[in-house]
C-alpha cells in the first residue's frame, strides 16, 4: 500500500507551516512540533512534488498485480438506442474510437443489444467500425439494468476489448458503473479529451476535484478500461455510402436473461426545448443580480432567436429549471454561437460549452477564466452592455438591417 512517509528530522516550524499551506485539501495540520496528515488526504502528492524537498516522501510498494494487456484488444463502443433508433452520441464516440484505434493499431467494435435491431446494426456498418456485435433477444426489448449488465458482461468475457466507451446518457450513466464494478475496473465519467498510448492505456482527461483544474487519468493495471463521454463533446463523421465491416450475431445463455425489473409503463416525454440542440445560446451566470433582471436577457435571446442557458448557481437559487443548465452537472451544448454574460467560467461550465463554434463573453473582470476560452471577450458590465446592444439591434431592425 503506498503511503506518505514524513521525515520528522527535517521539520522546522517554517517547513511545517509551508506544508500546511501547500495542501489543497487542508489535510495537513500541526500538533505541537509534529505534522499530521488526516483522512481528508487524497494522495495528490503535491506535498511531495511541490513541498520542501526531502520532508514528505511517497513510498510505493512494488508488489502490484498486473494484467497481460496483450490479451485485451480493441476499442468498443456501446450503442445507445431506443427501439433501434441510435442516439447521435454513439456516432460521435465511434468517430473518436476510430481516431484512437489508429494510434494503437486496434479494431473498433460496436456492441448493440435489444430486440429486432438488425436494421440498426446494418446502419452502423456505414460508420467505419470493424465489427458490430449484436445481441438480439425479445427479453432485451426494453432497458432492464440487470439483463443489460449480464449481456455486457458476456460480451466482455468473450471479446475482451481493451477500452469501452459509453455515451453519458441517463441510460449509459446507469449501465456503465454497474458493469465497471462487476469487473472491478476503472470508469472515468464525462471525459472531455481522450488519447491512447501504444500500450493501449487510455488517457482520459476531465475536470476534477470540483475545481478549476483538469485531471489526466489512466487505468494502468486493469482491463477493460471504461469511460463515458457526453453528447456533443466529439464530432460524428459523415457516414460512408457503402457498408463495411462484419455483423457478429451473439448468443447468451437464456438463464442470464431473467430480470427482477418489471416495467409497468413507458411514457414518451413531451418534446421540449433542448439546449444541446440549440444553434444560438445566450447564457447567464451569477453576474445577474436579481430574477427581475432576466427580462433583458430574455429580450436579447428573443432578438437573436437564441435559447437561454445558465450556470449551476442560478439553478440552485431556483431562477431556472434544471434543463437550462450548461456544464458538467447540466447539459453539453455545441452551438454556432454562445454569448455568456456575467459568467466567470468554471471548468465545470466550460466543459459543457467549449465546443461552441463561436464564444463571446461579457464579464467585468478582465481576469475571469471565461476569457481563457472565449473567442471574443467583452470586458464590461453586462448591465450596461446588454441593454445598449438590445437598443442597437432594435434600431438596426427599424432601419431595415
Amino acid at each position: 500500500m503506498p503511503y506518505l512517509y514524513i521525515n520528522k528530522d527535517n521539520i522546522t516550524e517554517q517547513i511545517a507551516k509551508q506544508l500546511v499551506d501547500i495542501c489543497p485539501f487542508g489535510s495537513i495540520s500541526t500538533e505541537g512540533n509534529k505534522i499530521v496528515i488526516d483522512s481528508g488526504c487524497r494522495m495528490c502528492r503535491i506535498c511531495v512534488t511541490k513541498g520542501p524537498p526531502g520532508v514528505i516522501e511517497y513510498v510505493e510498494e512494488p508488489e502490484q498485480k498486473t494484467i497481460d494487456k496483450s490479451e485485451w484488444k480493441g476499442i468498443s463502443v456501446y450503442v445507445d438506442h431506443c427501439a433501434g433508433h441510435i442516439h447521435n452520441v454513439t456516432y460521435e464516440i465511434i468517430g473518436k474510437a476510430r481516431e484512437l484505434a489508429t494510434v494503437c493499431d486496434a479494431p473498433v467494435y460496436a456492441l448493440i443489444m435489444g430486440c429486432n435491431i438488425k436494421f440498426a446494426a446494418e446502419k452502423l456498418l456505414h460508420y467505419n467500425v470493424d465489427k458490430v456485435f449484436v445481441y438480439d433477444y425479445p427479453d432485451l426489448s426494453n432497458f432492464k439494468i440487470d439483463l443489460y449488465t449480464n449481456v455486457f458482461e458476456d460480451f466482455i468475457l468473450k471479446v475482451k476489448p481493451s477500452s469501452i466507451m459509453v455515451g453519458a446518457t441517463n441510460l449509459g450513466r446507469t449501465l456503465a458503473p454497474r458493469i465497471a464494478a462487476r469487473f472491478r475496473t476503472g470508469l472515468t465519467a464525462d471525459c472531455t479529451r481522450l488519447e491512447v498510448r501504444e500500450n493501449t492505456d487510455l488517457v482520459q482527461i476531465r475536470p476534477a476535484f470540483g475545481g478549476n483544474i483538469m485531471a489526466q487519468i489512466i487505468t494502468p493495471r486493469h482491463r477493460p478500461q471504461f469511460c463515458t463521454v457526453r453528447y456533443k463533446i466529439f464530432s460524428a463523421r459523415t457516414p460512408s455510402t457503402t457498408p463495411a465491416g462484419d455483423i457478429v450475431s451473439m448468443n447468451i445463455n437464456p438463464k442470464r436473461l431473467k430480470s427482477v425489473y418489471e416495467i409497468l409503463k413507458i411514457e414518451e416525454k413531451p418534446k421540449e426545448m433542448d439546449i444541446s440542440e440549440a444553434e444560438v445560446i445566450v447564457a447567464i451566470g451569477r453576474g445577474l443580480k436579481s430574477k427581475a433582471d432576466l427580462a433583458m436577457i430574455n429580450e436579447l435571446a428573443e432578438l437573436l432567436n437564441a435559447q437561454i442557458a445558465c450556470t449551476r448557481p442560478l439553478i440552485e437559487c431556483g431562477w431556472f429549471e434544471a434543463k437550462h443548465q450548461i456544464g458538467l452537472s447540466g447539459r453539453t451544448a455545441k452551438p454556432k454561437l454562445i454569448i455568456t454574460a456575467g459568467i466567470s467560467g468554471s471548468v465545470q461550465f466550460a466543459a459543457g460549452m467549449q465546443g461552441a463554434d463561436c464564444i463571446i463573453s461579457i464579464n467585468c473582470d478582465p481576469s475571469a477564466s471565461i476569457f481563457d476560452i472565449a473567442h471574443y471577450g467583452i470586458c464590461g458590465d453586462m448591465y450596461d452592455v446588454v441593454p445598449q446592444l438590445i437598443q442597437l439591434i432594435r434600431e438596426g431592425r427599424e432601419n431595415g438591417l
Partner: protein
Amino acid sequence: MKILVCIKQVPGTSNVQVDPVTGVLIRNGMECKLNPYDLYALEMAFELIDKYGGGVDVISMGPQQAKDAVYEALWMGAGRGSVISDRRFSGADVLATSYTLSQGIAKMGKYDLIICGKQTTDGDTAQVGAEIAEFMKIPHAGNVSAVTDISDSKVTFAANLDDSVITERIPLPCLLCADSNINTPRLPSYRRKQKLGSDMVSLITLDDFSDKDEKNYGLIGSPTNVERIFPPEKHQEKKMFSGSSHELSDKLYGLLRELKFI
C-alpha cells in the same frame, strides 16, 4: 421501512485554481457544505417514512469533518448517522469509494432501501450509487423522480430516461438514485439540533469492515490513477475588447452583424 441515505460533504465553492508556474492547487478557504443533490435524496427518504413508517439513517465517507454534513441530516430528521473515515481510504476513486461505502453500509445494518443523490458537485461523476448496488448485489435505478408505491416487498417508482419516463417495480432491498429538483427539501430543525446534542455520529474505520484487506481501498484499491493535473487550456486567438460601455456595445453589435447572427 428502514432507509439509508448516502450523503457527501463537498467544498462550499468551486474556487480552486492551479498556479500556472508551480502547478500547485490553490484552494481558497475550506468551507464545506452538504452536497445539494443529496438534499433531494434525503427528502425522498423522509417523505417515504412519513407515509410508510420506519426510520432514516445516513452514512457518509470523507475526513472526520464530514460529520458536519451528517449532523445536518440528523437535524432534518435522520435517526442515526455514521462517517466512514480512515487515512487508509485516501485517494479512493469511484470504484474504491463505492466498495468502501458498500462495506460501511453492511456495518451499519440491514436496510430495505438505500437512497443516493444523483451526483456530487465536486466529483460530478454520478456513478457511485450504481457501483454500490453492484457490490451489494441488489437492483438499482438512476434518475428516480418519484416513488409511487411500496408493498409486498417491492418498490414502484418512476425514473427519467432521456426521452421517456419509465415506471418500474423492483424487489426490496434495492438502491435508488434520486433525480434533482423532484421535491422541496426540508430545512434542518433548530429544535432537533438543540435536542440531539453533539455526540450522535459514529465513526467507522477499516477495522470495522468485514473485508479488512487494505489493498481494496484508497489509492491502491483504485484502478484509475490521476497522472497529472493541469489548468485548462487557454484559447490562443482571442480578441479582447475594453472601453466605455457604448464602445463595447457598438463593437459587439458590429461583431454579431459581421458573423451574420443579426
